[in-house]
């Protein structure tokens, strides 16, 4: 593997972390007035996805969607502006952080846990019936893997061998409920066998491993071999949402996860062990942080939507000419 690929992965993770840190900054500055779900600790999954995604592929994501959007190539300025509720945002400030829609990159999300997968199924059917080589990726968490929609989407996708990849970010916590306490199986990936689908289990804190597994899954689906469940285990470093009192886990446990499983720290150690120049890695980190700081400053200058336009965009006739 060339250094270039590794550096790109490292940079992607840094860019994702800087993005969500900018969101936290925006929240502190009261530029976001609702719920915010950041993905700190889960950067290796977003960064690992990015390489195997093609422009024609679709990604349908979750309430914790920023990294997937960036991986799919959604413009980060428009995304940050949407999260900050601006008229110049991806969805003119109507969607907000849980509901970004970008038809240009085939990216969308839902704030309803598990509801992403049936939508991905629809993309997959469209791609297959049109004879296109695109793949639909539905992202969900361990919580979403227990929903009826997960099962229904897998039944239909597998029966028709549709090009769908279900990416399960298993951070072991559905808000407070632990995966081990509610799952009948040790992993989500092993459930794939019940659908006659392929299941892959990967350490979601290892960006190289995620990139490999995700590429394998995408190739499998793209080649017409049917859907794949990719389960990436990871850890959520912050609460379910900002302001979550996290009464369900001790502070020391959270700190232990941060100290042991930070995908950026882990990857940096691997790169340095392989001879990477620490100064060069520092420079990448500094560049990404500075870029996001500048971007946030720019976004905070953007206009809020006009209250007189609050009813617009419900129906086609209300949309701009």
């Amino acid at each position, binding site marked *: 593997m060339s250094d270039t690929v590794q550096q790109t992965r490292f940079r992607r993770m840094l860019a994702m972390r800087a993005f969500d840190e900018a969101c936290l900054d925006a929240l502190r500055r009261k530029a976001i007035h609702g719920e915010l779900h950041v993905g700190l600790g889960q950067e290796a999954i977003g960064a690992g996805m990015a390489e195997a995604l093609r422009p024609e592929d679709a990604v349908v994501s979750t309430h914790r969607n920023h990294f997937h959007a960036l991986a799919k190539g959604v413009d980060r300025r428009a995304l940050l502006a949407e999260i900050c509720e601006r008229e110049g945002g991806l969805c003119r400030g109507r969607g907000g952080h849980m509901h970004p829609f970008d038809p240009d990159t085939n990216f969308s999300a*839902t704030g309803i846990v598990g509801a992403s997968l049936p939508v991905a199924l629809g993309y997959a059917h469209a791609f297959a019936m049109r004879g296109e080589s695109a793949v639909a990726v539905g992202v969900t968490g361990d919580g979403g893997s227990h929903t009826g929609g997960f099962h*229904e989407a897998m039944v239909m996708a597998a029966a028709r061998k549709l090009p769908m990849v279900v990416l399960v970010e298993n951070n072991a916590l559905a808000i407070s409920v632990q995966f081990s306490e509610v799952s009948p199986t040790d992993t989500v990936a092993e459930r794939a066998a019940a659908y006659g689908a392929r299941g892959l289990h990967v350490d979601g804190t290892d960006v190289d491993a995620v990139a490999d597994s995700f590429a394998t899954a995408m190739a499998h689906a793209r080649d017409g071999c049917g859907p794949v469940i990719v389960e990436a285990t990871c850890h959520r470093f912050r609460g379910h949402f900002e302001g979550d009192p996290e009464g369900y886990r001790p502070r020391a446990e959270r700190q232990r996860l941060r100290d042991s499983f930070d995908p950026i720290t882990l990857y940096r150690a691997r790169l340095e062990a392989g001879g990477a120049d620490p100064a060069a890695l520092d420079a990448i980190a500094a560049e990404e942080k500075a870029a996001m700081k500048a971007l946030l400053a720019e976004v905070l200058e953007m206009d809020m939507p006009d209250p007189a336009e609050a009813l617009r965009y419900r129906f086609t006739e209300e949309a701009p000419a």
Partner: protein
Amino acid sequence: MSAPDRINDRINDRINDRLAMPLPATIAEAIALEMERDPAIVCVGEDIGRAGGVFGTTRGLQERFGRDRVLDAPIAEMGFTGMGVGLAQAGMRPLIEIMFVDFVGVCLEQMYNAAAKIPYMSGGRQRMPIVFKTAGGCIGSAAQHSQCLWGLFAHLPGFKVVAPCNPHDHKGLMAAALRSDDPVVFIEHKALLLQKGRDFRHHPDVPAEAYTLPIGQAAVVREGSDVTLATLSATVEHALAAAEELAGEGVSVEVIDLRSVVPLDTATVAESAARTGRLLVVDEDYLSFGLSAELTLRVIEALGHGALRQTARLAVPDVPIPAALSLERAVVPNAALIAERLRAMAKGA
């Protein structure tokens, strides 16, 4: 027989043939014509392919357009309703059939949180051209297979909600729904699906070619001067029967078919009620927080307080639809109940 006579005979035969068409065949014809002109239309639902739909509204479509475009889905409404959202986002124009509207409880999530909201949530960037085709209304199947629920969909912002009453409107409004870029809930009435063209009092004629009707325009189906009666779907037939009865008693009833709940054509109803001074809204859906109160208030807001001498509502009085015929007749608006209410109004001020 002269040549022109022979031609006229043939035309009459053809018209008679079309009057013999069951309503489901008319609906299937509407969908087929649209599928022919637009390859992006894909139909998904239970029993719509090989069986042609439990009422026959998709009969022949799978044979003609193939299994990818007319897809027999497993009993997985949440899955295939959300699939409709994904199909729409991928540039297709899905028709998703929820066999009975009562089943919407298992897939409402994808309808109201995704399909209905995405156009707005995306700031107009993501269109959602989906038709949710479903059968509603009472044919004696009790509480879980008899509801209308158009008031439910109308309450949730983002849907257009259509419920036609005759073959002509079913064909034109189905075509309009399939050409709309907005999500349309298209509610067929089961009692009407069991009828043929000639069974209908109003507009049984259906042109063979494709045509559309504007969604959101009510139709005055009987003119009158004493009472304005607004309703829709199968109740239009009951209203016409009641109006005929009342005409014999010297009461002139104007009957308006709303045709859609969203958009709601308040103007047509208000114009009529301003003339008659009396408004009766009849609704086969539930009474409270529904169409009857909404329309009545919109008319009052349009005309001003005091513009009407009487307003009245007749709807299912907030009770699940009972199984026993004696009970069903007591709560679901029918010609007898409507006539009774009209008589009471005529005796009033």
